[in-house]
């Protein structure tokens, strides 16, 4: 499909980049990205991917917009309080870029629906706020063999990692299982600097676009950590764990599991 004049103008700053060009912009237009969570991380991820012209954005979130979300969830406005997050997100995405097709699910990701939901998407971005879902998304990506951009934030810190199933280290290569319930404070309990979600979510969107374009070196086999208080970024080299319960040659987890523990929900 050829770009019309408006699209050439809209994406001109991308097309100008030799690494993108018209060909790369078409790859973005054809891309289908599944964003789990329309919250702190999901907001910048969805907005930047929409602005970039990602053709299909899948978004799942079962929550309603709460006043306490607006300090960081920049896709939602004051007038959206009490509305489903996916409705609010869809509206902003379409207003920003009508080229984007939004496929939204007012639901939570579960062991039952996860594999079906990610079918038809090229890659997954984790914008969730709890460990059970983070582990579920990791396992879903491994089983469905879909690239995943993982991230987590807390207080003034964040971490990001790209996972190419079967090729690079996965989340469980680092963290075998969720921490014991109540051990790690949630953002709801411990707080989070709103702009930090923008930093980390924007990195996720950037890594997603790199994968779509096939440019540069993906954030694989390393955990990017960011400490806002010292403004320090670190790349911690990570290797695939031969004892990983899900992505090793002898996995002990062979189907999706719902962990009961709830951390940082609705935050």
């Amino acid at each position, binding site marked *: 499909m050829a770009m019309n004049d408006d699209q050439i103008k809209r994406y001109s700053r991308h097309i100008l980049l030799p690494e993108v060009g018209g060909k790369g912009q078409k790859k973005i237009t054809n891309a289908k990205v599944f964003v789990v969570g329309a919250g702190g991380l999901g907001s910048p991820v969805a907005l930047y991917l929409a602005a970039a012209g990602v053709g299909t954005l899948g978004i799942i979130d079962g929550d309603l917009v709460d006043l306490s979300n607006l300090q960081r969830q920049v896709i939602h406005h004051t007038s959206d309080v009490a509305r489903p997050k996916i409705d609010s997100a869809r509206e902003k995405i379409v207003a920003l870029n009508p080229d984007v097709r939004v496929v939204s699910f007012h639901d939570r990701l579960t062991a039952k629906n996860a594999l079906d939901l990610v079918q038809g998407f090229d890659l997954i971005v984790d914008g969730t706020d709890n460990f059970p879902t983070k582990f579920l998304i990791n396992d879903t990506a491994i089983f469905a063999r879909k690239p995943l951009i993982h991230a*987590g934030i807390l207080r003034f810190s964040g971490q990001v990692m790209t996972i190419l199933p079967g090729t690079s280290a996965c989340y469980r290569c680092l963290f075998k299982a969720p921490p014991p319930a109540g*051990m*790690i404070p949630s*953002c709801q309990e411990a707080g989070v600097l709103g702009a930090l979600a923008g930093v980390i979510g924007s990195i996720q969107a950037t890594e997603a676009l790199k994968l779509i374009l096939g440019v540069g070196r993906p954030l694989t086999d390393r955990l990017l950590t960011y400490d806002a208080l010292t403004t320090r970024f670190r790349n*911690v080299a990570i290797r695939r764990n031969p004892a990983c319960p899900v992505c090793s040659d002898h996995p002990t987890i062979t189907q999706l599991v719902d962990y009961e523990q709830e951390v*940082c929900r609705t935050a």
Partner: protein
Amino acid sequence: MNVKLNGKPEQVDQTTVLELLRARNIEPQMVSVEHNLKILDKDHFATTPLHEGDSIEFLYYMGGGG
């Protein structure tokens, strides 16, 4: 002995990973430990000795994002 802890050179007296965690007041359940590029099983924290020049990373769980 001299080790690299989370990328920084540090002098430590402890001889195992578990002792080092305890000395830093870090609850072993709350971190993943990478020792010379190998992610340790939590059961091995107590039995993994530290040597001069080792590289140790304490990786913290971060579950937020909403």
